């Protein structure tokens, strides 16, 4: 399912003395099956953009086209439930949405609301708990009896259980320890690959954006200023600096290495593994050519 933002503007608290413009003229195309990372400084409008993707916010200017639905500023949109089922959203600190008596019921909450039959919902819950690396026993426990990391996983399962076509993630790993962070990001990537799930990730981690995304969008002062491939975006350090962002660590190390040795690596290394390989290669070649 393609999502298209067409010159979207959004203001909070319209028609009050506290009106606050959050987005201006944002155009962004999220192709079906892509993995898009949205990066930008704090307050640049990333979360506001995200909430347009499943019509939790409606643009005050411009239009958002989600699949075959069009949500236009000033036009009353009816029946947004379908959109919200197709576009699942994992908020920052999603464990805050847990409420039900047991983990099983909580995971089934979304699907049941959207009319999925009981057995099917339960089947999905069982499957997801396993997929997310949680022990089977948690299904019968109260979500409030779990550790922080487990709660986060259950909340994510609650969104995945609706079987969305698009998965929207707002800093899904904030506050987790390094292992938890890595496991969850890898899981999203796996889903993206295996199920062809269109994925949109808001993150402060340039490393994650570089590692996983095939399209990167930079937000700055409520505008979407650049979109492009990570290899191109993260190579342009000057531009990143203009938007108060730093390149990923791998890129910084690569530049450092290049400056010191005078060798030039091919392209730009977006993952640690790639960087190691490139450096090894360059050094080997450097030797040969002497």
């Amino acid at each position, binding site marked *: 399912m393609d999502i298209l933002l067409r010159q979207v503007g959004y203001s909070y608290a319209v028609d009050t003395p506290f009106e606050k413009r959050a987005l201006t003229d944002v155009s962004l195309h999220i192709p079906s099956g892509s993995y898009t990372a949205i990066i930008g400084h704090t307050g640049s409008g990333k979360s506001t953009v995200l909430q347009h993707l499943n019509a939790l916010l409606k643009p005050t200017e411009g239009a958002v086209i989600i699949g075959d639905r069009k949500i236009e500023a000033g036009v009353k949109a009816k029946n947004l439930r379908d959109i919200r089922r197709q576009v699942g959203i994992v908020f920052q600190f999603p464990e805050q949405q847990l*409420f039900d*008596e047991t983990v099983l019921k909580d995971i089934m909450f979304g699907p049941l609301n959207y009319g999925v039959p009981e057995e099917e919902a339960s089947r999905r819950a069982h499957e997801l708990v396993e997929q997310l690396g949680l022990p089977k026993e948690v299904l019968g426990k*109260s979500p*409030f*009896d779990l550790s922080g990391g487990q709660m986060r996983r259950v909340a994510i399962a609650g969104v995945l259980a609706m079987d969305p076509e698009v998965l929207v993630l707002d800093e899904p790993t904030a506050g987790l320890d390094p292992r938890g962070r890595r496991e969850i990001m890898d899981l999203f990537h796996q889903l993206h690959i295996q199920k062809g799930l269109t994925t949109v990730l808001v993150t402060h981690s340039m490393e994650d954006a570089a590692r996983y995304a095939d399209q990167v969008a930079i937000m700055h002062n409520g505008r979407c200023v650049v979109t492009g491939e990570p290899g191109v975006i993260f190579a342009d350090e000057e531009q990143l600096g203009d938007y108060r962002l730093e390149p990923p660590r791998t890129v910084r190390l690569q530049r450092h290495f290049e400056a010191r040795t005078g060798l030039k690596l091919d392209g730009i290394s977006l993952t640690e593994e790639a960087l190691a390989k490139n450096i090894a290669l360059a050094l080997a070649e450097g030797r040969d050519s002497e």
Partner: protein
Amino acid sequence: MQKASSSYTSVRTYDLILTSMAIALVFVSTLLLNIRLPIAANGGLVHLGTAMLFVIAILFGPKKGLIAGAVGMGLFDLVSGWTLWAPITILARGLQGYVVGKIAWSGSRKGGSTGFNILAAIVSIPLMVAIYYVGEAIIFSSWIIPAASIPGNLVQNTVGLIIAIPVVAALKKTPFFK
């Protein structure tokens, strides 16, 4: 709600903060959470402040019920243009919270009996309505005008009751109350 360390001071501090949170919860539910119902009174817009007040009084008893009702809703009046009503609200909602808590907690029930919880809320309704009626009668110097707000108050309270009971039941099942 057991805290790991339970010296006298820490229990009191926690209690104080819990009460502050209760005030904030009542305020926020009054301001932000509205349900529109297809009925005429109040234009159909019902806030969840009353429901929240019932829940708090039932879960935490008369003292917190009193403070959450009086301060939470009184504060709401103060900051949202109904300053003149604040004294009435403080009295009516404080008493309402107290009565609900008192009945729901009578005989060491501690809000554990659904029957008593419902009874508590029902008993508090005429009390709250009457205080508002008398208070507004003084402001307006009339016994007729304040009658206009009775239906709205009744709807508000009824919806509060209908919502509070399942919420209490659900909350009682969370580990915080075991």
